[in-house]
């Protein structure tokens, strides 16, 4: 898989992300009024083909981690269609999302109405009939009322969803899966986190950590489960004898291996690697990257590799997406992107990477960007990059550029390339 770039034209799409938006609301004032949004991810589209590694690069705060987490539905995206292996994880179409939001709001209101009416009724009855003031009766009443309220919520929501969807001509399968359905889908998609120190429970042994997904999602008996744990430890290069040790007894690189083994436990197809090597030393980084590549080959995995380290991404990724302030500005096959970056931001980013070669520092022409990244709660008018772009034009301050396929397989969002 490493030698030949996957044939993107014929390959099967494993992950399809359309119009992913993740806004975090800002509430201010005494009444916690909703006054704005931090637009962490603002309209992102991409596909990941089966067996491929898509690198997602960008500076801190550009929304790359949020994007990875939203795809796995660790966040509730503001809007999105996310298909993994053909199964919709969010809203297949935007109308469904709006209907869902409306139905939820209406159902909540009806529930409040039922609660208020019920409490009033109970209070009136208690005043009217002395027998009703008995603690047991009050308790039973409250219980019945809560059940009624919960029932109302789901009934009203279901009713509104069905009728509205039917009216708009949307099938019910276009709605986002419930938490319970999502849980069934989780084994196919897993995540490797940045900081192995923080993502492993310090009170659990290695066997406990790797075995937890197995006991949550499978019905293996303890012998089979242990077998699988040992198998996984072999796969990631951990000594079986360490199964009963705790995370603090391991070095950073080995801890990351534990995290990878846990992600592999349920035979996932798709793994989001969120800066898996950022917290490791250079000599250890190479070990973990090689392990990820070996596992990909062995189990046919598909990766979304999130990183700010461009040289590592060049090594591991087949295609690379560059994010800036919540948007993808360029998406291209790896070799094309590094040889001939098209977007001015990609150019600046690549030229800012210090090369371990003193001679190149004298000859290379550097694009040093001025200033800082604008705040995602208040992005600039027009193109997000217009405040720092070295080749900014008038139109950039007015219109947000669309993503265009300028050459086969190369997408750029820039007015210079339209």
């Amino acid at each position, binding site marked *: 898989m490493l030698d030949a770039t996957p044939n993107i034209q014929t390959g099967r799409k494993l992950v399809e992300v359309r119009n992913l938006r993740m806004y975090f609301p800002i509430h201010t004032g005494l009444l916690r009024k909703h006054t704005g949004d931090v637009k962490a991810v603002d309209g992102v589209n991409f596909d990941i083909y089966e067996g491929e590694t898509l690198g997602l690069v960008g*500076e801190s705060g550009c929304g790359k981690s949020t994007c990875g987490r939203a795809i796995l539905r660790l966040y509730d995206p503001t809007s999105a269609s996310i298909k993994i292996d053909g199964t919709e994880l969010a809203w297949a179409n935007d109308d469904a999302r709006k209907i869902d939001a409306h139905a939820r709001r209406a159902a909540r209101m009806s529930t409040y109405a039922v609660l208020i009416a019920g409490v009033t009724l109970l209070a009136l009855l208690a005043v009217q009939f002395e027998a009703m003031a008995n603690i047991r009766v009050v308790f039973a009443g409250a219980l019945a009322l809560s059940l009624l309220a919960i029932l109302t919520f789901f009934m009203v929501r279901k009713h509104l969803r069905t009728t509205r969807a039917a009216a708009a001509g949307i099938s019910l399968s276009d709605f986002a899966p419930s938490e319970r359905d999502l849980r069934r889908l989780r084994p196919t998609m897993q995540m490797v986190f940045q900081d192995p120190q923080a993502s492993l429970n310090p009170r659990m042994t290695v066997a406990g950590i790797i075995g937890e997904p197995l006991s949550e999602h499978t019905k293996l008996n303890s012998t089979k489960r242990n077998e699988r744990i040992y198998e996984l430890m072999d796969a990631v290069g951990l000594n079986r004898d360490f199964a009963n040790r705790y995370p603090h007894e391991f070095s950073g690189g080995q801890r990351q291996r534990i995290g990878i083994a846990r992600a592999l436990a349920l035979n996932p197809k798709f793994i989001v690697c969120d800066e898996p090597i950022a917290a490791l*030393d*250079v000599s250890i980084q190479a070990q973990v990257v090689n392990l990820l590549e070996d596992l990909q080959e062995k189990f046919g995995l598909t990766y979304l590799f999130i990183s700010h380290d461009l040289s590592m991404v060049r*090594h591991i990724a087949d295609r690379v997406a560059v994010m800036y302030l919540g948007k993808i500005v360029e998406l291209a096959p790896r070799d094309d992107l590094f040889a001939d970056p098209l977007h001015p931001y990609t150019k600046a980013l690549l030229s800012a*990477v*210090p090369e*371990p070669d003193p001679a190149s520092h004298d000859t290379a022409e550097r694009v040093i960007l001025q200033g800082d990244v604008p705040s995602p709660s208040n992005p600039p008018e027009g193109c997000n990059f217009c405040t720092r772009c070295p080749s900014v034009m008038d139109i950039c301050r007015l219109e947000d550029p669309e993503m265009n396929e300028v050459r086969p397989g190369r997408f750029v969002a820039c007015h210079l390339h339209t």
Partner: protein
Amino acid sequence: MPDGADTAMPAEADPYVLNVKDLKTVFRTRRGEVHAVNNVSFKLKAGELLGVVGESGSGKSVTMMSLIRLLPMPPAEIRSGSVEFGDVDLMQISEAQMRAIRGPRIGMVFQDPMTSLNPVFNVGFQLMEPLRKHMGMSKSAARARSIELLELVGIPDAARRLKDYPHQFSGGMRQRVMIAIALACDPEVLIADEPTTALDVTIQAQILELVKELRQKLGMAIVWITHDLGVIAGIADRVMVMYGGQVVEEAPVRELFSNPSHPYTRMLLETIPSISGDRAERLQVIQGQPPMISRDPDSCAFLDRCPHAFDRCGRENPLLRSVGADGHNAACFWDRVDANA
């Protein structure tokens, strides 16, 4: 501590601003001793930028913290060594004398600008503090100098930003403020401990540009600690590679990158992928883990991970020896030229 201090001390006409000899720092922990720095010696020329590279735990930060005596003692203990700075030995002088050197004559920039700036004082106050304490400036003179310094490090609208607090600055701007504070009293030596590690690449490029510019303007000597060989290649004059608390190789920057001698340096350079040129199918790895040294070394620290190790490496600890021109030294018994021939 006085070991080694009584050997040669030709203070006059010394071109070195800092001369560290046989520095040895040990941490005492409940699980025994950790020898973090083992007989490190180096010299810093006036106006030179010395890059110090190494993985975490290689002792690069502890070396620098020991020589300016910023380590908490205990648990740290400086067992031996001397640090000649001008005509004084920093290991011998009193704490009060040290305070008069730390700041005005040796400046420091740390990795994380948020934790090294005080969040409850505005940056103007923090900039003016060393100026008033060490230089005895009046409030208005210190203010004028602070504005000058902020402009020097490229912070726009300096006069107004003096009243701002650290949280009102972005990461890159905070690091600029830290550099301004370190430069406040015109130090002869600036020690920068991973100053760009916490920053994004585009911001890092800005800071590196700034440092190059400042060196031309001010001409002080800089010790730049980092684990990023790319950064070192861009700014350093001379490089010192540390491993297991020892200097394993030192050389001028071009010599080190074109002609690395110690196996560790060679493998380190092969490990890191590049964004240009050929792309390797597989990354080279250095197998194993860096060591924790718990006693005086009696063998090479890199022994377990070295592909060229032979029996002598397990018997004695190699000392730095000359392997090339311009003070290119490496601590290794393996002879690269013989092996290649």
